[in-house]
């Protein structure tokens, strides 16, 4: 930053810092403390409110475009007032509470589900020196909040006193828990490389080394994106709302604005994961020196929306996976892959520090080495698990004959231990 005057809006920290400095000069300390908290909370609340309204419209239009149709275009110019119409409709609906339901929990669950997105947004660096609370354990804080979400999902499902809701809640819990592990191990690679759990430090590391995290850590980037997709419950992993299977899962009994709150929280979660991917892997608010001219918070917003757009893109194009396919993918593929890559990154960090090589040499070498390692690891893990591609199938073959890992038919015990490969049809 060249100048640090209050009108330098490249980072909104400048006007806020000037205001807080003025408050400290004229009032006791606690006034500035409370005002800074209020500013942060109001900003996040405003952002979430506006974002959710816009994103409902944006998502429906984008998905419609992918499906070669127009989205909402009746209410307001180009359908821009559609979210407001939705909100009004939901508010005037009768919010039913089942008679057998645990009414206190039933009412509390949507509210509790709203807390993790807001808390996560407090730790994320929106721009230079622009986090509400840049905790030194910011990354672990985000993981800890993410681990509370299954509990809230469970209380939502169970308090509906509906077998399908409970089943859907358990399935959703299993899904979220299974995909937390690869996400956390991917973030472990990030922490190992960048040496800090503080999100502001992670962005600054990428700035100092003039590289995006994505180039240095391709496997954690892919693993984290896939895990985020599954954790948020978007397609391809939206078994939660697989209406043909579970009739809307843990959301079944919720009507009216409670359902609207769940839906909005799902969108907010997707947006926040986009923001986290931008922070860890796309350089956060930094953009190769362009952040001296463009406001940093604008850069971060664009990156966050880019991450969100990837999720919407996946929703519009990819089909849904079965729950056992999803769980197997997580436990048997993503976790070994991300663990092996974390080992590799740890070794690289030690070699880098011990040899004392300068950054200019080390970073390109690491980029190339990690890319090669990615290819080797992915191909290796796939081969090890016994996936076998059917080359140019000439006739329809049964799944049980090809021997792919998501076999749905039980078969007799094999002769050798862990022999997933099966004499299939040689094409």
């Amino acid at each position: 930053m060249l100048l640090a005057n209050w009108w330098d809006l490249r980072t909104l920290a400048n006007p806020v810092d000037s205001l807080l400095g003025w408050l400290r000069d004229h009032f006791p300390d606690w006034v500035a403390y409370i005002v800074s908290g209020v500013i942060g909370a109001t900003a996040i609340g405003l952002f979430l409110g506006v974002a959710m309204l816009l994103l409902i419209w944006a998502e429906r239009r984008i998905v419609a475009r992918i499906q070669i149709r127009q989205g909402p275009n009746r209410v307001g110019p180009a359908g821009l007032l559609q979210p407001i119409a939705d909100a009004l409709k939901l508010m005037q609906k009768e919010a039913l509470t089942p008679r057998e339901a645990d009414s206190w929990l039933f009412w509390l669950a949507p509210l509790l589900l709203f807390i993790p997105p807001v808390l996560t947004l407090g730790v994320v660096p929106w721009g230079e020196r622009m986090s509400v609370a840049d905790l030194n354990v910011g990354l672990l804080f985000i993981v800890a909040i993410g681990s509370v979400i299954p509990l809230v999902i469970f209380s939502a499902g169970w308090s509906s006193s509906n077998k399908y809701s409970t089943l859907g809640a358990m399935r959703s819990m299993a899904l979220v828990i299974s995909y937390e592990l690869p996400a956390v191990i991917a973030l472990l690679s990030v922490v190992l490389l960048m040496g800090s759990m503080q999100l502001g430090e992670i962005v600054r590391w990428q700035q100092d080394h003039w590289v995006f995290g994505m180039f240095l850590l391709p496997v954690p980037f892919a693993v984290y994106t896939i895990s985020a997709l599954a954790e948020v419950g978007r397609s391809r992993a939206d078994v939660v709302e697989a209406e043909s299977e579970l009739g809307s899962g843990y959301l079944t009994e919720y009507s009216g604005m409670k359902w609207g709150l769940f839906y909005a929280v799902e969108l907010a979660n997707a947006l926040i994961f986009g923001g986290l991917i931008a922070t860890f892997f796309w350089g956060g608010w930094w953009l190769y020196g362009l952040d001296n001219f463009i406001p940093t918070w604008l850069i971060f917003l664009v990156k966050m929306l880019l991450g969100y757009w990837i999720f919407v893109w996946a929703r519009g194009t990819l089909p849904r996976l079965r729950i056992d396919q999803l769980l197997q993918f997580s436990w048997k593929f993503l976790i070994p892959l991300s663990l092996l890559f974390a080992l590799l990154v740890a070794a690289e960090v030690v070699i880098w520090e011990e040899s004392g090589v300068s950054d200019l040499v080390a970073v390109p070498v690491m980029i190339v080495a990690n890319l090669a390692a990615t290819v080797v690891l992915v191909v290796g893990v796939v081969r090890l698990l016994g996936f076998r591609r059917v080359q140019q199938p000439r006739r329809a073959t049964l799944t049980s004959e090809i021997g792919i890992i998501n076999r749905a038919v039980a078969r007799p015990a094999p002769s050798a231990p862990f022999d997933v490969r099966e004499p299939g049809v040689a094409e």
Partner: protein
Amino acid sequence: MDRDLGVALGFWGLGALAVVAAFGIILTQNLLHAVLLLILSFVAMAGLYLTLSADFVAVAQVLIYAGAVGVLIIFAIMLTPTSSRINADTVFFGPGLILGGLVAVVMGYVAFKTPWDTVEGGGFDSTVAAIGDGLTNRWALPFEIASVLLIAAMIGAIVLVRADVPGQVLHPEGGVADEPAMEIAEPRVEGDRALVTSGRTDA
């Protein structure tokens, strides 16, 4: 003075929350409400750790206790029959109260009589580096032993859960023939069965 006021507010508020949650666990009739109140008390404990400037421990408390142990207890409760989920009155309420009171008196006496080391308030370094340094330098052996213990627990859990390994022979009457317990066979695809909690007799 403002800082002390903040810390005092935090401590008494969080302490009250933890105690109220604990009383709620004992007094509520619904077992699942008890579990959720337990999780609330875990979160209050995390807040108390924060007032002691233990940032990593506080976040780890939320992650491990509220996130993992809470979920574990909920899954365990879902596997129990619905009839035994009532936290009913017992004969032991009076004796339990007396025993709890005695334990509280002893612990309170010890807490007040111990000469605690006090530290000046103020800024602190992040504890993550210190904990990591301790775990890998001075306390490396207990760290490794703890990880071996966890692996043993996981293997034990897997062995307990694998009731019908494909290598075993099913009797016509429906029993299971004796097979060596540690025979390694192919990992069975669980599918949805493991997630249906209304008993293993359902198809």
